[in-house]
């Protein structure tokens, strides 16, 4: 299999092909991806991704932090969907602990995750279109993304590195008037999606650049570990939110768009459709938001309320113990996977019974999806490489960790 032998085979005597270096500073590699392209004229013969420029050793750092402290690290992995990372990690630790999360916390998590999905897809759509020469879409997408980031700031105090979820629930309940702000945004959002579609879906240039480009079959996508819209565009009907629900996703009605072509255009259509489906989920979450606590009833794990900490001896002791020593997690191992905007994001957390994760491994969806890139591009033009990279929606923080 050619995509398994990534060394460019340059034969200096034959001199038929040349190696072109693309990145790591190339704007359309969406970060610091470096590609070695072996080209024959304009045609790509082989392609070899070279990654690691953004490797920050987050897994190693995580082993040196208390369980709660590691939440902050997870924001920085896939930095376009920090809340999705937070959720996946806290779900894994909560599974290790065997905690029950109150319904309100679960629903707020779903709501924020779908907003994150929208924000992430908007960055993808804007930059993908920008790469292919449609500049104005970027401005429209970032207009709406800005609204979502303001919502994140309202709940967590941070626009991007939110760290809003806690092991056992949320850091605090959402602020007053938050749901009406979300409602105001999400009621208008479907018309915004219509605007993006007006610019692209029927656009003859857009179609020429994307239709029939960088195709991948369902078998290849599965074998290469692709997930998310990249897999669904090839016709595999698989979405963890529906098929292996977590955080009460089973209570929401939504469609999972599935395509058949497996080309760039299909992946574009699916993600745009997912924007609309996410908006539907947010509407349902707003309509059925349960009342009640947002933290689990587990005094040894969850920090007590500020008021109690100041008035009750026991709460003060728990507070002191959790902050200074962390909390102990029963020994065991857990793999928790959730559907991130890019596909299956998985956290494998091993506990040895101590207050720090013995091992925290992250399965990045982009990391696996990137392996499909050579299959998508080989035999096609260099210009299509740009379209292919955009269409698998990689985030280099997620690839390199």
């Amino acid at each position, binding site marked *: 299999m050619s995509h398994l032998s990534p060394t460019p085979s340059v034969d200096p005597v034959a001199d038929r092909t040349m190696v072109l270096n693309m990145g790591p500073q190339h704007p359309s590699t969406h970060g610091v991806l470096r590609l070695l392209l072996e080209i024959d004229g304009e045609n790509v013969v082989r392609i070899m991704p070279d990654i690691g420029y953004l490797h920050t050793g987050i897994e190693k750092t995580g082993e040196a932090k208390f369980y709660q402290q590691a939440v902050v690290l997870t924001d920085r992995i896939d930095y376009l969907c920090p809340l999705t990372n937070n959720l996946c990690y806290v779900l894994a630790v909560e599974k290790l602990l*065997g905690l029950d999360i109150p319904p309100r916390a679960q629903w707020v998590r779903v709501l924020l995750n779908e907003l994150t999905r929208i924000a992430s897809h908007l960055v993808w759509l804007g930059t993908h279109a920008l790469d292919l020469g449609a500049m104005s879409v970027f401005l429209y997408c970032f207009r709406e993304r800005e609204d979502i980031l303001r919502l994140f700031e309202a709940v967590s105090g941070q626009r991007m590195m939110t760290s809003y979820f806690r092991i056992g629930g949320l850091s605090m309940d959402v602020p007053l008037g938050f749901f009406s702000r979300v409602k105001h945004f999400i009621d208008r959002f479907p018309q915004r999606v219509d605007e993006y579609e007006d610019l692209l879906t029927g656009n003859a240039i857009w179609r020429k650049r994307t239709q029939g480009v960088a195709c991948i079959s369902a078998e290849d996508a599965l074998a290469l570990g692709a997930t998310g819209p990249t897999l669904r565009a090839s016709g*595999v009907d698989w979405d963890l939110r529906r098929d292996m629900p977590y955080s009460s996703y089973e209570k929401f009605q939504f469609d999972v768009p599935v395509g058949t072509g497996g080309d760039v255009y299909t992946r574009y259509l699916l993600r745009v459709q997912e924007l609309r489906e996410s908006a539907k989920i947010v509407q349902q979450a707003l309509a059925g938001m349960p009342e009640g606590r947002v933290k689990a009833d587990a005094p040894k794990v969850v920090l007590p309320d500020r008021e109690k900490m100041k008035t009750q001896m026991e709460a003060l002791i728990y507070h002191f113990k959790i902050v200074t020593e962390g909390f102990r997690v029963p020994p065991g191992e857990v793999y928790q996977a959730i559907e991130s905007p890019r596909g299956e994001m998985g956290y494998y957390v091993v506990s040895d019974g101590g207050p720090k994760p013995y091992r925290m491994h992250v399965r990045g969806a982009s990391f696996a999806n990137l392996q499909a890139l050579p299959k998508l591009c080989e035999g096609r033009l260099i210009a299509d490489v740009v379209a292919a990279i955009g269409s698998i929606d990689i985030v280099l923080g997620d690839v390199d960790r």
Partner: protein
Amino acid sequence: MPWPEAVTNLEELKARPALKTLLAKIPQAVNAARLDRDELTIEVGRSWLREACAVLRDDPEARFNFMSDLTCVDLYPAEPRFEVIYHLLSIPNKQRVRLKVRLAGDDASVDSITSVWPAANFFEREVFDLFGVRFAGHPYLRRLLLPEDWQGHPLRKDYPVEGYR
């Protein structure tokens, strides 16, 4: 709600899909099994790993057609030191299983499964890079994330968090 006690008795677990397939086709490959927190872990002998993966993928009942994740845990200073972990997913059956291979510290090598799932390519290179575990038969076993001339394997437990100064 707290989890029930982990089940390690093979007799109780033998009806579980992945284990049933392995016990039927290659019983000698299974060293142990454990059901903990609703997740099934099967410990497989090192020489049987690649075949176990192929069996689980091709069996018409089990149909573990997707490799989600591959990683490693360093148990230093205990021996056998390394546990290589494979998370397989059956999309048709909506099931997961975890395969585990134990490797001694002075002979940390296991067969590559890139011939079963090409997806394992990057994952195995990552484990090689960060743990120093070798994968026999891998088409391109070079460092993936760290520079080529990096000394040591950072995710090993005897590697300091701040690195060597």
